[in-house]
């Protein structure tokens, strides 16, 4: 019997498949992963400390930079948290616009997840198709918010500006094309035997482990738990829309991947309903220039972001700046499960698992 040694391979922080600045130290026995040690903080920008020095309105653009691939979702969560803190009501029209923008962001984020998984597994063409479709959403964001990636279009009390001309047809045509896009992703990748072989049974996350480790979002739903905050704790107007919560039962990489593709379709349905039901009216409540919540009041508000449960914990001391702001970042918590699901797999599974957990480092490192 030959003696074998354990060795470490540092995947990242500079590595093609780490989605930013993730550093996963793989401890390997041959091709088998014994353990993974995740090192974070390469994109740490101390956003929680910054919040203590900014007024509530000034902080809005910073939140957009948490999950920069689904930019409207973290902004929406923050604005809703502040509105909860101050008891601000948001006009109906703004609610509908917010839902449309949030769901578009979710689609954009999932498309990045799909594209990135594609390229991580060597299907370069999958990357290009995903990015091509995402580009249309970016154009819609540019049209409404003025910026493609980090528009900070949602504001405390409503949205920054009304939707422009050409918005509704653009969104409508996008929504109509979503089934075609899904067919294409499924045809090129999901149905592919190599693809299925690389993902099936890889990185299995049991529902028990998922809950213990606080995993949320598509990763939890792929483990068979239909838990979606849009349904479980609907803030705003999500209860008005009809949509399904896509789930899978295996909890492996293929399930996580498929849940994301299915969610694109469901988001499309929500957008369609929101476009139909959008009333006319104000797009923002009149919000005072200086926001001063009651001293000592605190709020924990959570929304279903593209990556999972995104929570904001804000403590006010009565001044115009938050006394303490904490972001419960889904990527941060979802990443905790990476070593658990990687153990016993081969090295290539690590890449698959990182890709299908879909962490975003801007959010996890904050």
């Amino acid at each position, binding site marked *: 019997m030959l003696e074998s040694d354990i060795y470490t391979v540092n995947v990242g922080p500079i590595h*093609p498949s780490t989605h930013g600045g993730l550093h996963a130290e793989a401890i390997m026995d041959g091709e088998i992963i014994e353990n993974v040690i995740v090192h974070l903080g390469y994109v740490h920008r101390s956003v929680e400390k910054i919040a203590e020095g900014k007024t509530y309105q000034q902080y809005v653009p910073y939140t957009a930079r948490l999950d920069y691939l689904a930019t409207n979702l973290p902004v929406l969560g923050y604005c809703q948290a502040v509105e909860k803190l101050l008891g601000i009501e948001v006009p109906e029209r703004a609610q509908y616009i917010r839902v449309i923008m949030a769901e578009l962001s979710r689609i954009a984020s999932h498309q990045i997840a799909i594209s990135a998984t594609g390229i991580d597994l*060597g299907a370069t063409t999958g990357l290009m198709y995903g990015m091509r479709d995402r580009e249309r959403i970016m154009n819609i964001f540019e049209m409404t918010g003025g910026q493609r990636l980090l528009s900070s279009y949602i504001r405390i009390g409503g949205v920054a500006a009304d939707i422009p001309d050409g918005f509704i047809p653009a969104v409508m045509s996008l929504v109509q094309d979503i089934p075609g896009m899904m067919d294409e992703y499924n045809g*090129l990748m999901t149905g*592919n035997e190599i693809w299925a*072989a*690389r993902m099936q049974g890889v990185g299995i996350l049991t529902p028990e482990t998922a809950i213990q480790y606080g995993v949320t979002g598509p990763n939890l739903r792929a483990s068979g738990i239909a838990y979606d905050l849009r349904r479980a704790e609907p803030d705003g107007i999500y209860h008005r829309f009809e949509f399904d919560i896509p789930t899978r039962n295996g909890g492996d990489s293929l399930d996580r991947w498929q849940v994301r593709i299915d969610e694109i379709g469901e988001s499309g349905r929500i957008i369609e309903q929101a476009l139909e039901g959008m009333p006319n009216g104000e797009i923002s409540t009149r919000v005072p220039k200086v926001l001063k919540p009651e001293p000592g009041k605190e709020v924990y508000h959570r929304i279903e972001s593209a990556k999972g449960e995104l929570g904001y914990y804000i403590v006010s001391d009565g001044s115009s700046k938050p006394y303490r702001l904490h972001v419960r970042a889904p990527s941060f918590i979802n990443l905790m499960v990476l070593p658990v699901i990687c153990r016993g797999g081969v090295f290539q599974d690590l890449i698959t698992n990182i890709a299908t957990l879909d962490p975003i480092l801007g959010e996890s490192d904050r």
Partner: protein
Amino acid sequence: MEPLFINLAEAFTGWMISLGLDPGWAEAVLLVVKWIIVVTIITVNIIILIWLERKVSAFFQERLGPNRLGPFGIFQTIADAIKLLTKEDIVPSAADKLIFKTAPMFFIVVAVMLYTVIPMGKGMQVINLNVGLLFFISVGSLSTIALLMAGWGSNNKWSLMGAVRSVAQMVSYAIPLAFSLLGVVMITGSLNLQDIVLAQDKWWFVILQPIAFITYFIAATAELNRGPFDMPEAEQELTGGAYTEYTGMRWALFFLAEYTNLVAVSALMATVFLGGWQGPWLPSWLWIIIKTYAIILVFFWVKWTFPRIRMDHLMSFSWKVLVPVSLGNILLTGAGIYFCRWMGWC
């Protein structure tokens, strides 16, 4: 048009003999000239191929590909080559320098050697070896050593992992590769590639040996380290695999060698399964080019569609599927030959 190059060669030898050279020496000089021509063709061909792959992959992905330098961006590769040539040559301080430096040269030399036996037209060949096919297979598998040298010499975990993977892969796939060619050899009864081409004047072997054709295609993709079997490189996993530490022209040599191999393997495939240089109307040397490029395009198509296969799946696919299937094919071919003889067809 047909005997253009043969006439040229004959004229050349004739001219040298008229200068008073011994006919034997004239042949030797011709061989050197042939070699130089082959190397030139390879180099030019690769410049076109790299451009073609970039262009084709772009079209698969709804992009334009290189389009700035020259018509359709054809000069892009030349610009890239100049860039690579002028780049700093970095040798890692911890590397095993001799092995590190010789690996790319070894790789390209082995790749170029493959061209000696490929029939590039009617009577056109650098050397007409009677064991041409055997030569091709054995020299072709030498490139494994080059990759192992690169991986070992770099003294880098990624490189070593890439190298180990590629050795495992290429050794496993060399077997079905050889086995799938055996069927053809059994039918023709010769290892000479010209004979194999001539045996296909009625039926191409792709029709007689369809299973062998498919297994050969798959095994060849793996031997070429092309997607979906691009384990040694696997840039999304191994950041560049065996080539991680290479820069500039040394890296480019690997790249060149891979394309050289691609053309050689495609040309062999055209020779063995698609009737080689045989074809109507056009001259024979044009036919082999057309067939080779058709196969190369299929290689591109496959690479730019499929994801990378996992290492253990790759190995089990070779040993559990390809090897038995190609062995079965040999059995089938043998039975078929006996059946034909028994029926008196051949």
